[in-house]
Structure formats: structure tokens, C-alpha cells
């Protein structure tokens, strides 16, 4: 975003220069120098904040995985049953005992945990029994599909929330506003799996416009057209699940911004309503929106789990459900860790972006 700086005029009262974070009178030296040093300082502060937050990610991940392992150790479920699957009932006691020893299942849980942690650090996530493949390979195969689905849905939700939010704030109190806000409040009460089933019932079964589930039609090659057709319903449902909350926030912060002094001032200078809206209201009102999207990531993951399992979408979130029903522990541990990484990095990136874009935001914490 480029802004023309205000042209200095002789009659203008002394423009303040920001120095050491304080606004002081214009000093003798080149004002730009002071400003640049402030900008540099700000960048360093933001970098420090990012590093501090990154340093916090490691202990949280450590604690998360320890909690998962502790839970597994305390559960009455026999990990050997998870390892052997159906063969658990047919294999002999001697064979089971030997497997126990080789897998180290009789060791205390913290030893198993440190072993797992060690192999994790060397890049080995273990083997998934359900998929009969290394966990890393399963993730590599499925992650792109989840990212496609969640990315499309998030983009759709953000775009829809922005357009509708601006529109309803512009026509506050009108029919469209009341309709959209009412609908948004109602949709907040509809869980994603219900809206997914309704969407299937209406668009796939009732109207037969779109396929019911899957990534492609049965037996068809993976092609752009196929995937796009199968993406519409899951991505749409996931977007609808995220949109109401974002939309109501956009509308609310726009309504707040419309009454602010700088906006009234811009309007009083005779600027066109369109210009005031696009250049003065939107930039300030939408800045907090970036962090909002960041805090929304856990909900996106939750929604993805439900939507992917309804639509049999071959992503990682569907793998969560499958590996949970068959207690595939290495898979579950890896997926939990992955989601924690996504959530923490997402909120970190959002906060850094916010701090970079808005110089008024504090950088500590």
C-alpha cells in the first residue's frame, strides 16, 4: 500500500517527529533519519517477538507429546493389540511376549517416550499399522489434499466475510443487513457435520449437481476437473462453518471505525464516500482481522476433521478418525503434534503480520 505523504507547507504547524517512541517537536537534524531509526528499531522488536514465540513453541510441543504418551500409558488399552490388529487374538502367548520385548512395550512410558522423541528428532515418525506405511509417507501423501481443502475453504470464508461484512456495515439496519446478520447468528449454531449432511442431501442427492464424496469419481484418474468438482461441496461446507464468526467481526469493527474521528475528518474534507471507505475505514478496521484468522485455525482443523470424514476426502484429517477407530498410536501421536505445530505457527505468523502492518501494536507478549 503506497500513501502519498502530506506535502509540507509553510503554514503547517510543526509536524512532530517520532523519536525514541515519543512524539517531540521538530528538531534541527533531518527528520527522516529519526524516523528510519524508529522503523529499524521496530523491525528488531518484531524479530525479537517472533524469536521469543518460536522458543515457546518447542516446550509446548514437548508437553503436548508427553501428555499424549502419558494418556496412552495410563489407558487400559493394550498397545500390542494396536500393533497386531486382528492378529492379536490369533497369535500365541510366546509370540506376543517376544514382540513385547522387541518393541519395548514393558518399559516405563517415559523410556518409550524418549525413544520416540529420539527417533522423531532423526526424522523417523514410526510406522502406521492402519495404512501399512511409514507415518511420514502417509502424511506426505495426504497433507497436500488437506491443505488444498482447508486453504480453499479459508480463502472462501475470508473473502465471503470481507465482502458481506463490508456490505452489511455499509447498509447497516437495512433489509440485507438484518437478513445476513440473522443468518450468520443462526449458522453459528449449526455444527459442520450437520451442514455437510444437509449439503449432501440437497446438492448431491436432491439436485444431483455435485458428487456425494471422494476425491474423484470411482476409478477415474486424478485430474483438475475431477478434483475441482469434488472439492466444491467440502470446501463450501468448511467455509460456511468458518464464515459467520468472521463476518460478524468484520461488520462490528467496521461499524466502530465508521464513527472514528479520522473518518469523520476525511468525510468533512469532502472526500468521496467511496474513497473514505476504501482508503480510510477499511485499512484500520481490517488490521485486527489478520490475528482473528490466525486464532481461527483450531476451528478450521476441527471442521476439517468432520468435513473430511463425511466426504471421504483423502486428507490427514480423515486419517485422524481412521487411526483413532483402530488405535494406531504412532499415527495419532504424529497427527496431534502436526496440528499443534500448525496452530502455533499460524497464530505466530498472524501476530507478526499484524505487528508489521500496524505500528501501534505492542510487540511484547
Amino acid at each position, binding site marked *: 500500500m503506497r500513501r502519498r505523504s502530506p506535502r509540507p507547507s509553510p503554514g503547517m504547524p510543526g509536524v512532530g517527529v517520532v523519536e525514541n517512541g515519543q512524539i517531540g517537536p521538530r528538531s534541527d537534524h533531518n527528520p527522516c533519519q529519526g524516523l528510519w531509526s524508529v522503523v529499524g528499531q521496530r523491525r528488531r522488536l518484531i524479530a525479537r517477538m517472533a524469536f521469543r514465540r518460536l522458543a515457546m513453541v518447542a516446550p509446548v510441543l514437548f508437553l503436548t507429546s508427553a501428555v499424549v504418551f502419558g494418556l496412552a500409558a495410563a489407558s487400559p488399552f493394550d498397545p500390542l493389540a494396536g500393533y497386531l490388529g486382528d492378529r492379536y487374538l490369533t497369535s500365541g502367548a510366546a509370540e506376543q511376549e517376544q514382540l513385547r520385548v522387541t518393541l519395548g512395550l514393558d518399559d516405563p512410558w517415559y523410556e518409550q517416550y524418549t525413544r520416540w522423541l529420539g527417533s522423531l528428532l532423526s526424522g523417523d515418525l514410526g510406522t502406521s499399522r492402519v495404512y501399512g506405511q511409514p507415518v511420514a509417507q502417509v502424511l506426505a501423501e495426504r497433507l497436500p489434499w488437506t491443505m488444498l481443502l482447508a486453504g480453499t475453504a479459508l480463502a472462501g470464508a475470508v473473502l465471503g466475510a470481507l465482502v458481506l461484512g463490508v456490505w452489511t456495515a455499509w447498509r*447497516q439496519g437495512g433489509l440485507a443487513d438484518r437478513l445476513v446478520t440473522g443468518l450468520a447468528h443462526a449458522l453459528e*449454531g449449526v455444527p459442520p*457435520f450437520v451442514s455437510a449432511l*444437509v449439503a449432501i442431501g440437497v446438492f448431491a442427492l436432491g439436485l444431483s449437481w455435485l458428487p456425494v464424496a471422494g476425491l474423484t469419481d470411482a476409478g477415474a484418474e486424478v485430474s483438475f476437473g475431477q478434483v475441482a468438482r469434488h472439492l466444491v461441496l467440502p470446501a463450501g461446507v468448511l467455509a460456511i462453518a468458518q464464515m459467520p464468526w468472521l463476518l460478524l467481526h468484520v461488520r462490528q469493527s467496521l461499524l466502530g471505525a465508521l464513527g472514528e474521528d479520522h473518518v469523520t475528518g476525511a468525510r468533512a474534507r469532502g472526500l468521496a464516500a467511496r474513497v473514505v471507505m476504501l482508503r480510510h475505514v477499511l485499512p484500520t478496521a481490517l488490521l485486527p482481522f489478520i490475528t482473528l484468522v490466525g486464532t481461527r485455525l483450531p476451528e478450521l482443523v476441527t471442521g476439517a476433521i*468432520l468435513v473430511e470424514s463425511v466426504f471421504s476426502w483423502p486428507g490427514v484429517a480423515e486419517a485422524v478418525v481412521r487411526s483413532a477407530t483402530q488405535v494406531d498410536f504412532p499415527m495419532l501421536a504424529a497427527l496431534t503434534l502436526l496440528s*499443534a505445530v500448525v496452530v502455533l505457527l499460524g497464530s505466530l505468523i498472524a501476530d507478526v503480520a499484524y505487528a508489521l502492518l500496524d505500528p501501534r501494536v505492542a510487540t511484547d507478549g
Partner: protein
Amino acid sequence: MADATRVSPGEAAKDRGDPGEWIDAGRSWTRARRTTKRARWPARRRLGAGMTALAILIAYAVLVPAVAGIDERMVDLSMAGTVPSAAHPFGTDQAGRDLFVRTAAGLRISLLIAGLCAVLSTILGVAVGALAGALGGWVDRIVMRVVDTVNAVPHLLLGIVIVALYRGSLVAIVASIALTHWAPVARLIRSEVLSLRQREFIDAAISGGASRRRVIRRHFLPAVVPQAVLAAVLLLPHAVWHESALSFLGLGLPPHRASLGTLLDEARESLLLGSWWTLVFPSLMLVLTTLAVAACGAAWRDRVLPRRLAEEMR
């Protein structure tokens, strides 16, 4: 919302120089409509409406299975998949079980589990938050890291892991919901206690010789009760969702036990056979319950704690 600055319609129409007009300046140059009636119901009315809706839902859930005299598990294959009629207002499912009774039983168990979980996780959250806020220091720091950890993993995923490891019992489901939802409550109560610590009556109590335990029990805990009750009410719809999501994914209650989640899971298959009613009625009950409880919570918050941040309990 511009509620605070909005002037009564008659006044504003007469006098355009009214302060309410220029504080609400955005309305004058956008395409905002002047609302002739108040946009929102007053809190008391919303609370009344929410409570009424909730009372009807609970009465349906409790009375119908008791009065109807039909066992919700009774299978009657000759009646499989019939359209809603006078005898079966919500129709029957693929095994011929009456959905009117079955939905009521499902709603009852969902509400029961959700209520239990909401209460449990609120108690846990209040205990942890009050301790962290009152003790401060390293206890506080460790507790806040744990809260961060619980918040970092999406609730449903952590719940799924817990349920997967402790399969098949009601305790597992309750634990899976209660253990994942206490973190926001703990954070809320902690910040409340931190602000209470600055107040003079706490100083007075301490200088009067009250022990730390007495301060927590007699001063902190009673002061956070309204917050805690509100948190429990606002957790209830989350818990209902969580339970039905788990059952829907086949990880919660066993399929023959009717809950809203298992009913929807069955609807997933019967939908392919064209039985729309198996989907419509259970999901309607789920959505209505969520909205009614959320309306009660919001109205209660507006009434009791008018300027509390709605943000903190997302």
C-alpha cells in the same frame, strides 16, 4: 454495536444536531437505514425466550420417552423407513425404530453428558485458574504453559485421542470433553482473580490476618461465581457439539444407544436411501438446543456482567 449511542427515534427525527447523531457519524454518509424500532430485544426478553425454548426442549427430552410407552430401541422391520405421519411424527429409521421417541432419548443423553461435562470442566477450570491467579509466581507460569498446551491442540482432536485410548465407556466421553474445555475457563478466572487482587478489600483481609487459603475461599471464589456460572452455560453448547461430533465419528456412544450424534451418523446412511427425515429432526433438535442455550448465555451476560468481554469465552 451502536446501541449505546443510538437516540430514540422520535428525538432524532426532530433534531439533527443531537449529539447521538454525530457520535454515530458513520450512519449519516453510508447507506445505513434509520431503524424505526430497536434492533435488539432487551436482555430480559431474550433470556425469557431462550429459557422458554430450552424448557420446551428439556420437557420433550424427558417426558416423551416416559409418556410414549415405546422403547426407543424397539426394532420393527415392517415399519422400516416410513415417512413422518400421525403415528410416527418424525418417521422411523431403517430398523423401524420410532424417531420421535428416539430423538427425545438422544437429546436427553446428549444434554445429560453435556451438562455433566460443562459442570466438571468449569469446576476444574475455576480451581486451576483461581490457584494460578492467587499463588502467582512459578505455579502461575507452569499452569499457563499447560493452558497454552491444551489450547494448542484443537479440542476435538485431543478429545478423539482420549476417546480412542479409553474406548467405549461413558467415562471416556465425559473425560474427553471435560479435559479439553477447562483451559479457557481457567484463563478467564485467572485474569479475574488477578484483577481482584488489586482491590482494597483483599488488602484489608490480608492485613486483618486472613490466611491465603481463607482469602481464596472466602473472597476470590465467591467473587468469581457469576463468571463461572456464565462459563458453564456457554460451555454447554460446546459440550453438546463435542459429544455429538464424537458419536457421529463412531468414537462416542455405541450405535444402539441413541444420542444426537449416533442418530446423525445413522442419518448419513439413510440419507442415501432418500429418508430426509432421519437427518432433519435430530439436527433440528441439535441446532435448536445450541441456539437456545447460547441465547440464554448471551442474555445473562448482558444482564449480569454488562461490560464483560464477550471475546474471552469464544
